[in-house]
């Protein structure tokens, strides 16, 4: 089913920062890379922060899979409306030019490839773009997938935002995912606190590094620099 992850991997003169990025700084980096006017879905959790870093004039239109385009910021105080939430069920607002639609239309929009970018969290991403972000597969875990598998295959570009290492120091960008897959070969770019990577059929490539050299990063991940 999944293809063997290619051993070919390379890095060329990556941009860099002199320190590991916080999730907030990383959100700003991703916001910078989202093209003006793009239609974007920001997954539940960390990716939600990216919205705060989009320039007001970016013209980026946010989609939420529970049935809305042109979603505005989180609702506060009196603006909270139980009939208006994002996919994480957090109360949000609408912007001028909002459109509402039902779930089948909303997922048709995603799965038909109309979104430009989707940003998701992940447990693991493989060098070839395989994604694992829906279940740890532990026996006592109650499985729950939500829209994860639809989002994974649904945008022109699927970005992942995550810490590069687990708390115990294991890489989450890996030759092959150990966790149950969400989608195969679906991720094109991985944004982490230690650096940014392109992934896909041609393997992994370091784009930027933060607080670590490309050579050292490649070694920690088992990437062969070409």
């Amino acid at each position, binding site marked *: 089913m999944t293809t063997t992850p290619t051993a070919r991997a390379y890095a060329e003169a990556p941009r860099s920062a002199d320190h590991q990025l916080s999730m907030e700084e990383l959100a700003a980096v991703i916001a910078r890379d989202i093209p003006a006017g793009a239609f974007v879905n920001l997954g539940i959790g960390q990716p939600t922060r990216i919205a705060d870093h989009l320039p007001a004039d970016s013209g980026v239109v946010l989609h939420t899979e529970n049935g809305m385009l042109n979603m505005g910021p989180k609702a506060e105080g009196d603006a909270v409306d139980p009939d208006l939430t994002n996919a994480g069920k957090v109360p949000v607002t609408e912007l001028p030019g909002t459109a509402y639609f039902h779930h089948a239309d909303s997922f048709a929009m995603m799965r038909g490839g109309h979104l430009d970018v989707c940003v998701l969290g992940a447990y693991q991403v493989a060098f070839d773009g395989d994604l694992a972000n829906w279940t740890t597969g532990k026996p006592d875990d109650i499985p729950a*997938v939500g829209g994860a598998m639809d989002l994974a295959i649904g945008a022109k570009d699927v970005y992942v935002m995550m810490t590069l290492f687990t708390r115990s120091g294991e890489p989450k960008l890996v030759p092959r995912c150990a966790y149950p897959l969400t989608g195969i070969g679906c991720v094109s770019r991985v944004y982490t606190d230690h650096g940014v990577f392109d992934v896909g059929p041609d393997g992994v490539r370091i784009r930027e590094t933060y607080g670590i050299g490309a050579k050292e990063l490649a070694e920690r991940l088992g990437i062969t620099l070409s």
Partner: protein
Amino acid sequence: MSRAEIVESADAAVAGIEDGATVLVGGFGLAGMPFDLIDALIRQGAKDLTIVSNNAGNGEVGLAALLAAGRVRKVLCSFPRQADSWVFDGLYREGKIELEVVPQGNLAERMRAAGAGIGAFYCPTAVGTPLAEGKEEREIDGRKYLLEYPIKGDYALIGAHVADALGNLVYRKTARNFGPVMATAATTTIVQVGEVVEPGTLDPEAVVTPSIYVDRIVQVAARHYTVQGAR
């Protein structure tokens, strides 16, 4: 389905739901959840139900209360596990309830297929994942797809905003979610609304669920639950 019936109470609306029925329940979390119909269904007593819904209940209300009352044999949903889904979690861990996890988009599209007379469809979601197990895979134009079958309900319980007396429905913001799709996929569609108006009041261009999909309507008092932050 002939013309929609306006009934006097939520209890009248859910009359006749049989033991063992498959019931589609609208709502995404609390938004669009037909609380009054679910409460009436608990009073009505039907058991051994299969529930199709995005989630498996929040806190102690709505679907969670139906589950707690022991009326549900099986839940077909995309996201049972939530911060406040302790009722479901407990039943599941005790082996007292069956669970079938379906990707959210497949849940919607499979119900649309049921309503639209589509026998089955090839869908790109879940290819190569554990949820592909047992499903037919086919490559079309270089992309892999899984064959997905319709999900049909005996009943749908949905919450809408306003109905006209013919049964045309409009929804409110993201509370629309699964309502329009479920209305098409059930043999009998039962709707709770905040208001019933005369035909001709709703803008014909803005009707979301045409009257043909609606069987019973009950007007209920507005009720707002706390919005929680779990998926």
